[in-house]
């Protein structure tokens, strides 16, 4: 690990000033991703500003039925919160399916949103990787790409976004609240994570001097009937091969509202708008679910090693919707 200076910010103002004034300043949340990347020499901040003392740890109900979650709420607390579990079961489940208990105790909401890809080549300093070293190329394309994305990839990067939490947030139309010395911005989650395009190293809409202060969950009544399903290589403590966040409202056998987002398959947390469109007004049947999945996955592109993800995603979408229909959001 490179040497760096460490500073513990007593308040938001200090944190914002330090990052506005300094070069190579990084915020430290739970550190579960940043410290790993520093150890591998992939992140090399000159200054690390510990933000865990900032008063951004609340989970508050908003007028109108939404919920505001502070950026420093630990993942384990978020998953255990009663308000979250009843209004947004999909979010509680998604968080619980990520990482391990120890990691969730450390990981923060802000850090989770900004966690970086698990592409094996991104971690290997000797490999070409446009995300790590812009312009160097992409060894994952044509290499070992079992974990690669099938949606949203470009010829410059095919890395999948690893977060479970962010998939649920994408489904919920969450809004990310960020702050800098220049003021406060509210970024819809759909715009927060970027497609790789020809700048895969730019992953989010967050400016270099901005702090995530909160995530706002709008009222989403259908989310009361939502769930998260994750397919992985072992029973716990592994990233998703495919995951699905879904919410469904059915009246008289017809889908009146549907929300769907995918993890493990997209270069960003993937809101499945095509599938949602196909579901709306369709009969709540296995056939319709399959057609919806196929509508979304029509655009999927895979290499020989991750081709299985297309079919696996189709099956997981159908199975998740089927379960929502029969059992609701009960875990």
């Amino acid at each position: 690990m490179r040497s760096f200076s460490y500073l513990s910010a007593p308040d938001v103002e200090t944190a914002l000033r330090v990052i506005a004034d300094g070069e190579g300043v990084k915020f430290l949340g739970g550190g579960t991703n940043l410290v790993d990347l520093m150890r591998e020499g992939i992140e090399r901040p000159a200054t690390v500003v510990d933000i865990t003392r900032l008063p951004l740890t609340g989970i508050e109900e908003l007028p109108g039925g939404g919920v505001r979650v502070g950026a420093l709420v630990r993942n384990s607390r978020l998953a255990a919160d009663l308000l979250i579990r009843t209004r947004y079961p999909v979010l509680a489940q998604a968080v619980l399916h990520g990482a391990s208990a120890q990691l969730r105790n450390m990981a923060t909401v802000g850090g989770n949103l900004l966690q970086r890809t698990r592409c094996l080549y991104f971690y290997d300093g000797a490999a070409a990787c446009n995300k790590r070293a812009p312009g160097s190329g992409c060894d994952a394309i044509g290499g070992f790409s079992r974990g690669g994305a099938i949606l949203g990839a470009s010829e410059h990067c095919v890395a999948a976004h690893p977060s479970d939490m962010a998939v649920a947030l994408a489904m919920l139309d969450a809004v990310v609240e960020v702050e800098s010395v220049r003021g406060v911005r509210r970024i819809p989650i759909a715009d927060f994570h970027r497609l790789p395009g020809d700048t895969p190293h730019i992953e989010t809409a967050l400016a270099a001097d901005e702090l995530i202060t909160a995530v706002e969950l709008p009222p989403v009544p259908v989310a009361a009937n939502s769930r998260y399903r994750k397919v992985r290589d072992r029973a716990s403590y592994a990233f998703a091969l495919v995951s699905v966040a879904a919410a469904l409202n059915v009246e008289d056998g017809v889908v009146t509202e549907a929300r769907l987002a995918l993890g493990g398959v997209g270069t960003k947390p993937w809101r499945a708008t095509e599938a949602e469109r196909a579901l709306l007004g369709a009969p709540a049947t296995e056939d319709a679910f399959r057609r919806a999945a196929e509508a979304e996955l029509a655009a999927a592109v895979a290499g020989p090693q991750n081709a299985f993800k297309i079919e696996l995603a189709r099956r997981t979408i159908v199975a998740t919707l089927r379960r929502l229909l029969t059992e609701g959001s009960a875990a």
Partner: protein
Amino acid sequence: MSGMDTRVAGGVGASALRPDGTLKVTGEFAYSSDLWLDDMVWGVTLRSPHPSARIRSIDVTPALAMPGVLCALTHEDVPGLKFHGLDHPDTPVLAIDRVRYQGEPVALVAADHPERARRAAAAIVVDYEVTEAVTDPWRAAFDPSCPKVQEGGNVLRHQPVRVGSVFEAPVVVTGEYEVGMQDQAPLGPESGLAVPAEDGGVDLFVATQWLHVDRDQIAPCLGLPPEKVRMTLAGVGGAFGAREDLSMQIHACMLALRTGRPVKIVYGREESFFGHVHRHPARMRYEHGATEDGRLVYVKAEILLDGGAYRSSSPAVVGNAASLGAGPYEVPNVAIDAYGVYTNNPPCGAMRGFGAVQACFAYESQMDKLAEACGISPVEVRVRNAVSQGSRLITGQVIDSPAPLAEMLRELEAFPLPEEPAAGGRDLRALPGGVAQTTHGEGVRRGVGYGVGIKNICFSEGFDDFSTARVRVELAGGEPHVLVHTAAAEVGQGLVTVQAQIARTELGIDRVTVAPADTRVGSAGSSSASRQSYVTGGAVKAACEAVRARLDKLAEENPGLTLPELLERSGPVEETREYRHRPTYPMDPVTGQGDSHTQLALCVHRAVVDVDVELGLVKVVELAAVQDVGRVLNPLALEGQIHGGTAQGLGLALMEEIQVVDGRVRNPSFTDYLIPTILDMPPMRVSILENADPAAPYGLRGAGEPPTLSSTPAIAAAVRAATGRPLPRVPIRPQDIALPA
């Protein structure tokens, strides 16, 4: 003799408490990575980024110019022999003019801080000329146009086995199988501390499996006589074969001798994946011929093991694959060819099960095919062909101790099957996908499979395999006390506990201390091949017997005296003994015949799995095992070995694989190399048999490896039964089940 009660508590057969157990559970055990001296400096290794390249030049001057750096060394600084190796010194201490695998050590740096050392190592300029990497073991072995990884050619050993001449049968089943590259994944990374001594020698504290074989490789490379390299075992965080070859030992000593300071080297997790050998990946082609009622007529097989860039213990691995390649079955006609080959892939060598694991997956898959072709059950086909005491192995060796395989299978089959829970209301943790909600029971199919494995215990093929023990009885605080001193490595298996148990039983004294393992006593041989209870146990027993004989004599000469009184009079009584198992013999290079093993051990597994066939997820519901261990020395430690070995076999069946692409390791981390968690490992039902081997101490049979063999094919068979898929490769991944290409 007076005062000697051989029924002392905590002896052989008791679940005596491990002296290291509480410390390990509470996090207070000092592992080799915890070693510390105030004036020590840190060593770091620069490794090759290329699987194959010529080295044009190495320039260490930029490293030397950096702050805190004490020295930077290359092959030119190796004081003595420039090669080491378990079987043959073929592995450069530091690369000379070429590198043969990604991660090969090229240069060393010592600095006052590990990060400074790392940066300095990164500043060393190595001019590589990248050359074609040989990564396909088949091509390496059989394509004459393939470049040679080692001068002698790419086939490091070809061991045939030839018996009989009938290779036609009414029922024939064939298959091609593959086993991925498994890692030992010990939690403790390679680490140690080398301390320069005033006599020009060095004291090395290190986590290893065999102190003396390390010393005998280290000393010539340092240009020192063996007695000037004094080694002490440091706390070992697991081994499983990963510590049989040298890693940082010579490097730390070189840096210590050069700087005159104690030097500590600790690999990180990623470096650890490059710092030790792995289990050989295998490609295997099998043909079994049998009668209509499933009796084997012949077995033909070709077993190709990728040994990677250096020799390590590959020749012995090939020997095991050949001699055990048809399994514990009576086969009258055999044509097996086992090959070990050099490639520019990561070097492979010892791992729990040592050469017997790969073939076991293949021959057991074949036995299931045969059962199906003959319309009999998997258990029945195995029982009909099972070896027993008096059977001949395919090497011609007669099994001369109990081998009740048929009985073991019948017992296993008779275990009640776990109930299939009714749909709905199931505990998610008991379902495929666990709590990730992948299924609540729909689309889940159950499968049951059996696996049988046979493993040689102790070193084979003529190796002079022995251990040494020094036992001393003396008065401490007025009471008799035993000190047991061996060089045997406690790697977590419980050997320290067992040594004390043996001393208690043999001497009837309950106060026993096992001295730290070091090279001040003779070699104990390796903590591998399931051999230490047998061989070091045998040595401790023999030394105790010699001490007891002297005490008996003393008692005879001094009638009426108690043991403390005798010891008061005689002073300490100490004896040292070497113990050897019966000799073994090489395999005939053409026919494979020969009494190459000294002891054979059997384990059988039944796996019950639930498979979500839609998503390809497997939940192993239960693993049941029957193992014959000859004699139980410590029931709890033994069960631990059976559970642990079984779990490692589960890992190979379902998830563990080092991904090597074009000679490069792609997943050197525990985030990407998956090992089973507690949620993946089911409860076990274990039955332990005690049919004594008269040739072994207490009749015991080595127990650590056999369960690793049979659990893998049992799980694969169960998944096949649930899905109807052929699944010729392990590890089996979700896409192999749900979405085959």
